[in-house]
């Protein structure tokens, strides 16, 4: 976070708050866990969660599942990006076509991807392929939509500059369209990655034999609640770091 331009007192207060908040939350959790207000299996004590967490990170099992999820993520996101960008440019280069496609794309984009799991399974089976496909499906729409609107909104005057210099179609694409699209594509990828992550993990939760989502729900089904929490923590830490990397990239390359 940019904390520039804060006077030192404010900065100190902010920092105190940011440190204190998790501490308070943890204490609150512990109190709830010990109070017996909730069924004990549901809110394990911090110590239990911590030891479960340690067990997880020191077991090679976790890294296998982690690897599966990352592979699915990589596959799904790559496919989503490639197809999304090509589709986005194709649809966006004709305003009429894009206005036809827009309602379809945006309503599909806002449909929960997980309900497509049965369809994807019918086609790709129950292995990692179906998770990759679901992830690709999820990531596709934001990327395609963003690329499409980016293509539509490539500043006409820049296209005119190209026309005035009699650029070929290829030169037009490479020298004017693609550089203009870097921003929208990265923005779309950032949104798409979030959706891909969710789609893949939910897919794993619903049906799979490997992956972090599978692990979490397996612990849930076998009443290892503390372990479930630690997997959730791992999932969230991973998602947040991936998102942080994406933010960095988009700040770096998006000169809009």
């Amino acid at each position: 976070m940019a904390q520039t331009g804060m006077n030192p007192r404010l900065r100190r207060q902010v920092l105190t708050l940011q440190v204190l908040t998790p501490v308070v939350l943890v204490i609150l959790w512990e109190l709830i866990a010990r109070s017996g207000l909730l069924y004990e299996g549901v809110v394990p004590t911090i110590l239990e969660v911590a030891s479960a967490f340690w067990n997880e990170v020191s077991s090679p099992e976790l890294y296998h599942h982690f690897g599966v999820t990352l592979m699915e993520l990589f596959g799904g996101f790559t496919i989503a990006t490639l197809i999304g960008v090509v589709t986005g440019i194709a649809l966006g280069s004709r305003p009429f076509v894009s206005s036809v496609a827009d309602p379809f794309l945006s309503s599909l984009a806002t449909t929960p991807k997980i309900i497509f799991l049965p369809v994807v399974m019918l086609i790709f089976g129950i292995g990692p392929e179906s998770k990759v496909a679901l992830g690709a499906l999820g990531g596709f729409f934001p990327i395609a939509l963003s690329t499409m609107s980016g293509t539509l909104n490539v500043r006409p005057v820049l296209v005119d500059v190209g026309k005035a210099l009699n650029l070929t179609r290829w030169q037009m694409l490479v020298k004017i369209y693609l550089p203009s699209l870097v921003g929208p594509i990265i923005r779309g990828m950032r949104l798409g990655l979030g959706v891909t992550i969710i789609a893949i993990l939910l897919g794993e939760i619903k049906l799979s034999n490997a992956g972090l989502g599978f692990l979490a729900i397996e612990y849930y089904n076998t009443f290892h609640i503390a372990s479930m929490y630690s997997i959730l923590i791992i999932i969230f830490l991973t998602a947040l770091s991936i998102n942080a990397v994406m933010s960095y990239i988009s700040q770096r390359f998006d000169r809009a």
Partner: protein
Amino acid sequence: AQEMDKVSVAIGQRGLWDTLVVHQGIEEGIFADENLSVEMTWTKGGAETLQAVTTRSVDMGFVNGMLGILGAYQRGAPVRIIGAEMTGANDLFWYAKSDSDLKSLADAQGATVGYSRPGASSHLVLLNLLAKAGVDAETVSAGGISDNRTQVMSGQLDAGWSVPPFNLDLVAAGDLRIIAKGSDLPELAEQTVRANISNTTFLTERRDVAKRFMRAYMKTVDWMYDNKDKAVERFAVFNNIDLEIAKEAAAFYPKEALLSVPVKGLDKTIQEAIEHDALREPLSQEQIDELLDYVYDPR
């Protein structure tokens, strides 16, 4: 050595006594004796296994609810029943908190009692149990075993369903009390509730493999009951549970319940399927003959 035949199977409900047959057989080398190398995938239940089989992602599927199979068959899925997986409802049981007033299902007048989902075996068995007890309880589609447990423990449900070994530890610890069992309904012992399936392609193209597989499967069932101590121990290890509990769990399952042939009580099942919208109309005898395709029948 000769190249082993690869078989991929999907099995629902990881870790139950009956769903561990294939695992036991693999560990005991019974499948290897038939020159089969088995690749196992656990699924979360019938629908997923069915998908895997009909789309040929796997060769065979185990532990499938009958209603799902019948429905899929009538809707044109290339699916065949190759044997029974579970006959009777011995595995199902219902429990309540020990400190509640529910001592048996007979006390359940007006209570909320959980089952997994409409049309599932837990639903059918519960309805039968309640009818037999003559009480009018509120049945709740409360989801899986863990969902039921959470809801019972937090007081949202009065009773929940389970199968062994799940929750037997809490019963042993005195937190829970079993209030009804599927075996309370002897008439159900003559009805197959779950079956093993395969797809038509596998059954025509590699029928010999299927045959050997089922032979090994049946041999494994025999072995499990002939060497019960060893089987129970493996069962306990697999689930990471006490040996005592594992023994108790295994006791729920008489050997007859696990026999592959024949599939029993199909007429009644078809009727139930129609009641629950799984079937649109009864199957004809020709259809039943086509659907039941025991690749290996030692009788």
